[in-house]
């Protein structure tokens, strides 16, 4: 039998890969398709992973589905950027709008563990006011969640992921000490710090989900620098090496290479299970509760594709908000060349950060942004240089000779929600015979103002430390949010504060798509914190008899 994880499922026959040992397996409980399990979770990333683990640990029967492969990092991950594009969700999608989103590397993953297998490990908390951005800051909408409660779940998420962060974080309310100490900062990160000091801004080591000392079977980070194309040492605390092993130990089943195409609902309007494609054919798994955690493109796609006569516009879409308010984050950068050797590819790419403009409100735009040090690998860098500066041939080759002297600052900025930015279904079908998505996106004036502000600030930072040959990369975006907004009422949102659909009481959505606003920091830790909260809420609601199992 082939052991190519992209072609043959690995979680089969009562066992799943032991990600910590080459060729080894761990036992896995398996459920019959005819048995209505308590929970089916679709997606195993930052939202699905913690839910599968926590619900299984609470004693529920849980199956986690993922369309992607079950990788063994120690064996499958090459030090090769091209080969590692196997981690991205690169299935066909149509993109349009004024600013079409480039899909793949920095916004969607297709693997057990989801995008966390290749995320940059940046684990930041929201600014508390963002949970009430309408009331406190005057833009967009409020969240139905209280930041103080979120603060407790952030604590838990940081402990579970052994986040390595600074002793004291300069922004926001007090938080407990990070479980692991911050990593040693590298060349590019040091230039961010010097630039921030020259500007009079605070800077900090970035809290990262990669361990700075051994943890269980994870060795400490060796600063290989391939974090965003898959960590081959398991230092990165992705879902694949944290919550998923916990889930298996607690009796959950994982089905890899299992693409869920439709959620079945009965005459009473309740979900009864999921149709999924695995090993060349369609199957049906019965379930009492269905949780969708496929991120902001695949989640609305699945729900839109599950339309019935009773739910003609898709499941959980009475409000008409499903698929709308898609948000990305602005991810523009400024690069320059230092006289000194920098070697920016060494170590995790975002070792230092300044959140100055997330917490400073004297500005002429809504929302906030941070910027972090950069360390793109050579292929990614050559692609950026050739596309943004139009260099090719000898000129590009010459520019690449400066690789070890490059520095860069990259923003993560909050784009505001708009009903016009959305995900819909196209006529065209994919390899499973499912309609592919059309992703429509355009920047608004506020987004553009913020981007120009950030580019100016980052450029000033580089100029102050003496960088030369400075240029701006103006077209990049990353991360996804929105499309299944959480809110206060069934009329203006898709799910409630517990991530439970207003329309289908045994259908839940728990991933970045429930974000009403996206904030100016990377979203993964917030997704995980919400998933941990949702698991607790499910248990409480079950105990109160408000969930039928």
């Amino acid at each position: 039998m082939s052991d190519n994880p992209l072609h043959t499922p690995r979680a089969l026959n009562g066992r799943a890969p032991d990600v910590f040992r080459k060729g080894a397996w761990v036992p896995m409980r398996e459920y019959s398709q005819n048995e209505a399990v308590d929970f089916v979770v679709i997606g195993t990333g930052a939202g699905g992973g913690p839910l599968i683990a926590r619900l299984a640990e609470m004693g529920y029967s849980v199956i986690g589905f993922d369309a992607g492969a079950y990788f063994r990092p120690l064996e499958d991950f090459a030090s090769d950027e091209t080969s590692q594009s196997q981690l991205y969700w690169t299935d066909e999608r149509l993109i349009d709008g004024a600013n079409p989103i480039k899909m793949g590397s920095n916004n969607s993953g297709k693997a057990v563990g989801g995008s966390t297998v290749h995320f940059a490990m940046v684990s930041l908390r929201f600014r508390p006011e963002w949970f009430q951005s309408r009331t406190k800051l005057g833009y967009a909408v409020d969240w139905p969640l209280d930041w103080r409660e979120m603060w407790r779940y952030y604590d838990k998420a940081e402990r579970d992921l052994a986040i390595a962060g600074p002793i004291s974080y300069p922004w926001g309310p007090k938080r407990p000490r990070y479980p692991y100490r911050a990593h040693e900062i590298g060349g590019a990160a040091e230039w961010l710090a010097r630039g921030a000091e020259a500007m009079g801004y605070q800077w900090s080591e970035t809290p990262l989900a990669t361990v700075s000392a051994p943890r269980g079977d994870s060795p400490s980070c060796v600063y290989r620098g391939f974090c965003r194309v898959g960590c081959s040492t398991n230092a990165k605390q992705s879902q694949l090496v944290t919550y998923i092993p916990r889930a298996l130990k607690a009796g959950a089943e994982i089905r890899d290479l299992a693409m869920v195409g439709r959620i079945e609902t009965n005459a009473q309007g309740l979900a009864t299970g999921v149709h999924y494609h695995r090993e060349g054919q369609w199957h049906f798994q019965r379930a009492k509760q269905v949780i969708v955690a496929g991120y902001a493109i695949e989640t609305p796609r699945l729900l839109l594709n599950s339309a019935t006569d009773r739910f003609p516009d898709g499941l959980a879409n009475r409000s008409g908000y499903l698929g709308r308010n898609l948000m990305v984050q602005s991810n523009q950068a400024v690069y320059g060349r230092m006289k000194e050797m920098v070697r920016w590819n060494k170590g995790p790419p975002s070792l230092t950060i300044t959140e100055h403009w997330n917490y400073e409100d004297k500005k002429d735009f809504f929302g906030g942004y941070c910027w972090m040090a950069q360390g793109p690998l050579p292929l990614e860098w050559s692609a950026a240089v050739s596309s943004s500066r139009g260099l090719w041939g000898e000129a590009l080759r010459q520019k690449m000779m400066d690789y070890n002297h490059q520095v860069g600052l990259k923003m993560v900025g909050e784009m505001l929600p708009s009903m016009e930015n959305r995900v819909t279904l196209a006529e065209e079908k994919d390899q499973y015979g499912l309609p592919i998505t059309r992703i429509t996106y355009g920047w608004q004036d506020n987004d553009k103002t913020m981007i120009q502000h950030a580019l100016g600030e980052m450029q000033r930072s580089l100029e102050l430390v003496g960088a030369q040959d400075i240029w701006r990369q103006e077209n990049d975006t990353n991360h996804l949010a929105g499309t299944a907004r959480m809110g206060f009422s069934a009329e203006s949102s898709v799910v409630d504060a517990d991530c439970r659909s207003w329309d289908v009481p045994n259908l839940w959505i728990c991933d970045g798509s429930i974000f009403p606003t996206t904030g100016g920091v990377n979203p993964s830790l917030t997704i995980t914190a919400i998933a941990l909260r949702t698991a607790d809420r499910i248990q409480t609601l079950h105990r109160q008899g408000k969930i039928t199992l």
Partner: protein
Amino acid sequence: MARYKGPRGAAGWALGLTGALTAACFAAATRGGRMARHPATPPRASEPPPSPEKATLAARRLNRSAGTLAASVLFDSAVEHYRGDFENRAMYTPIVTSALALAVSAHGTFDKSPAAHKIRDGVYLLTGVVGLIGTGFHVWNVVQKPGRFIWQNLFYGAPLGAPMAIGLSGLLGFFSERVRDTPIGQTPRLFGLPAGRVIGAVSGAGMVGTTAEAGLLHFRGSFHDPFMALPVTMPPAAAAALTNASLGAARTDRRLTRWWLRATAIMGVSGTVFHAIGVGRDMDGWRNIQQNLLNGPPIPAPPAFTGLALAGLAALDLMEDDSDV
């Protein structure tokens, strides 16, 4: 990669017992002079004259402790400065001086002559000065970094406390030569003070400083293994007991202090084993020795505690040998 997951079974019990003993030692030390088993000091009239053989023996023991420290520094600074690519030529200095200190300490340890040796003396003096200058270099390195004296730079910049290990080696060696030089019929003295008490106090202070460094670096490692707590608990207890002895009555049989110093000496040596296990836990463990030896826990560092504990034992000898009032 080793599958070590922290102390289990017997190892866990041993750690618990050591912790309990550490607490007991601390409690006893803070209770003052009552740690002495036989606190009675004989009347001066009946005291035997100071013995030059005993002074020489104590001096040789001090040579041994200075040599232990020098060996630790030799290998540790070699590994760490190689890791730093000898970016500054001055980074060769501690390797040369600690090698010299190690050589003269070995010579002194086997030398039964009751007089100081000029070359040994010179090397020890040089070593002590190099320790001070090295501290200056390390401070300079830290203040060059953005943020200066912030945790990031204390964790990952040049370690501020490390050069004083070689400084202490030189100082203890220098003391050793003074003790050896004690005129017949006199008790060993340093700067006009009883030698045992001075060396006890200096060793205790050295242990506190070394503990601070181990504490800082183990904190950097998030104390991920409970055994990492030993070098920040046992040596301070030893230092407390030693200081207690240095300030207490002379000619006292301090059995508990003695045993505690021995235990600390053993802990220092066994630290190399723990650090070797730590190297094994890093990616690809000992197969990837080229990387992990440099970036894993420093294997040669822990015996610095052994060197200081041995100096403490030599100081106890001096204090117990002679009444110095």
